[in-house]
């Protein structure tokens, strides 16, 4: 019976989702912590979860958790929470976990806070508003509390521990097997992963048309090891797939250098990249909010600067 339960997703490559390791690292400062992993591959990530601070890992490898959206996982979690009585249940803020957490909140009558960027104690979580300029401490009541934490809010560190693994047995009724995944398609970006690249180059509406995104790919190639991202506006417009999206509802990046082309700097975008070490922004509008956080801001047309920059980088790299 630990104070905190961390819901750990199994990544699409079968490894433990990095955010779960971040949550475990922080959670073990606040109290005792267990983890739960569901679906194919759950057992195989238990060791990693233990290394990051989980005392016990509850696992169930059943396909039902992957085949049907959210309902089986929420049911399993609700049963586990009733049995273990944690005070706090932690999730990553992402599409899949949000669904499970939202249903769990309804099942348990538990209050839920999303987009947390910090955890103060078992009752208090923090979030950032107004593009990250203001930190809000939110006090939560009742037990358990459900908190969803933004990826990369903490740095994962092994604790040197190891977990005991316990099979979680749960009966999933047919009533919960309705929203069925019948096809799976990947459309991941080529090149390095956005959340791991040392340099991220991203584009917004200021690039004017989808074809101009190729300039970002060319610059990424010229620099080498750079990843290409985008704002929600251009993802919604269908220019590039969702896997490019950086921001509140996309990926959070913290690269060494972030280059923003034709991005105004809506809050939605800023919260996903403001942790970057250095920021370069090119935008026509000198009033664009992105310039308030740029280390180097260029007031100008991204479509003029990009081809020149590609040539410049190529010639300097020889």
């Amino acid at each position, binding site marked *: 019976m630990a104070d905190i339960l961390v819901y750990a997703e199994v990544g699409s490559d079968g490894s433990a989702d990095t955010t779960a390791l971040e949550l475990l690292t922080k959670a073990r400062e606040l109290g005792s912590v267990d983890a739960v992993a569901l679906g194919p591959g759950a057992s195989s990530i238990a060791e990693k979860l233990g290394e990051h601070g989980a005392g016990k890992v509850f696992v169930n490898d059943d396909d039902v958790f992957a085949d049907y959206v959210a309902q089986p996982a*929420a049911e399993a979690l609700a049963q586990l929470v009733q049995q273990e009585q944690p005070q706090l249940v932690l999730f990553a803020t992402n599409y899949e976990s949000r669904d499970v957490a939202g249903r769990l909140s309804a099942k348990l009558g538990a209050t839920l806070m999303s987009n947390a960027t910090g955890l103060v104690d078992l009752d208090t979580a923090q979030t950032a508003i107004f593009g990250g300029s203001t930190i809000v401490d939110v006090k939560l*009541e009742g037990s358990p509390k459900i908190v969803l934490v933004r990826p990369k809010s903490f740095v994962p560190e092994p604790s040197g521990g190891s977990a005991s693994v316990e099979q979680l047995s749960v009966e999933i009724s047919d009533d919960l097997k*309705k*929203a069925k*995944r019948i096809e799976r398609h990947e459309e991941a970006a080529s090149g390095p992963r956005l959340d791991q690249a040392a340099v991220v180059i991203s584009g917004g509406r200021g690039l004017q048309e989808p074809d101009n995104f190729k300039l970002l790919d060319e610059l990424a190639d010229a620099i080498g090891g750079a990843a290409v991202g985008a704002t929600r506006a251009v993802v919604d417009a269908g220019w590039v*797939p*969702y*896997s490019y999206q950086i921001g509140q509802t996309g990926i959070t990046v913290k690269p060494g250098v972030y280059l923003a082309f034709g991005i105004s700097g809506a809050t939605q975008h800023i919260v996903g990249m403001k942790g970057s070490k250095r920021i370069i922004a090119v935008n026509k509008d000198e009033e664009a909010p992105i310039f308030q956080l740029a280390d180097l*801001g260029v007031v100008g047309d991204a479509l003029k600067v990009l081809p020149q*920059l590609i040539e410049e980088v190529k010639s300097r790299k020889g």
Partner: protein
Amino acid sequence: MNIAVCVKHIPDPNVPPEMDGKRLKRQGVQGVLDPGDEYGVEAALQLKEAQGGEVTLVSMGPSQAAEAIRRGLSMGADKGVLVTDDALAGADALVTARVLAAAIKRSGFDLVIAGVESTDGYTGTLPSTLAELLGVPGLTTTRKVVSCDGSTITVERQTADGYHVVECPLPALISVTGSVNEPRYASFKGIMAAKKKPLETLSLSDLGLDSDGVAIKQEVAELSKAEERKAGEIIEDDGAAAKRIADFLQEAKVI
């Protein structure tokens, strides 16, 4: 097919937000229909046009939230329901979902449509909490409605690295992203017609909800300034900006 669409009245996202004590200032702030909800209204109208039925907009908020419902009615929805009650100020996601669930159950539904998350709060769990309270499957983060024949709905569901095709029987809930369609503009005729469409205002007691069911279990304890990033060097592009950026990249040792 009867479709309920959740809509939210939010402060105009193009106006910088202000605080009123520990809450977002809403009094006297220009409000709009959450742009993310226009996709939900459009999705409902397209389904109605294909199969007939009725589109009901459901919202919770102060009395001026009726403006957001009118906006959706002017796009073509049939009627609106607004739950407004002083006890709901500062409601958390669970309380909001309970209120919307009660309002939706009251009018009946085959399909509920919501935005993926609100543009002012971004909590993003309301659709799944609502689906659970209604006892129906949820196809969240829908980027395309593939088919809906009145008994089954099939959608493309956005995932972190691609999409899944997911189907479920009705009744169900879907939440839609900004990729799902291109919302129509309200025509002048639509705006005039909307003024005559039914818009019902309900209180908590009309919905039979007691104070326990809507007890708000979270509050802002403290606000503080985050460490600010300082703006650095700003230059006008006079043709030399590319060189300056390349210098910067060299200083950062990435080239």
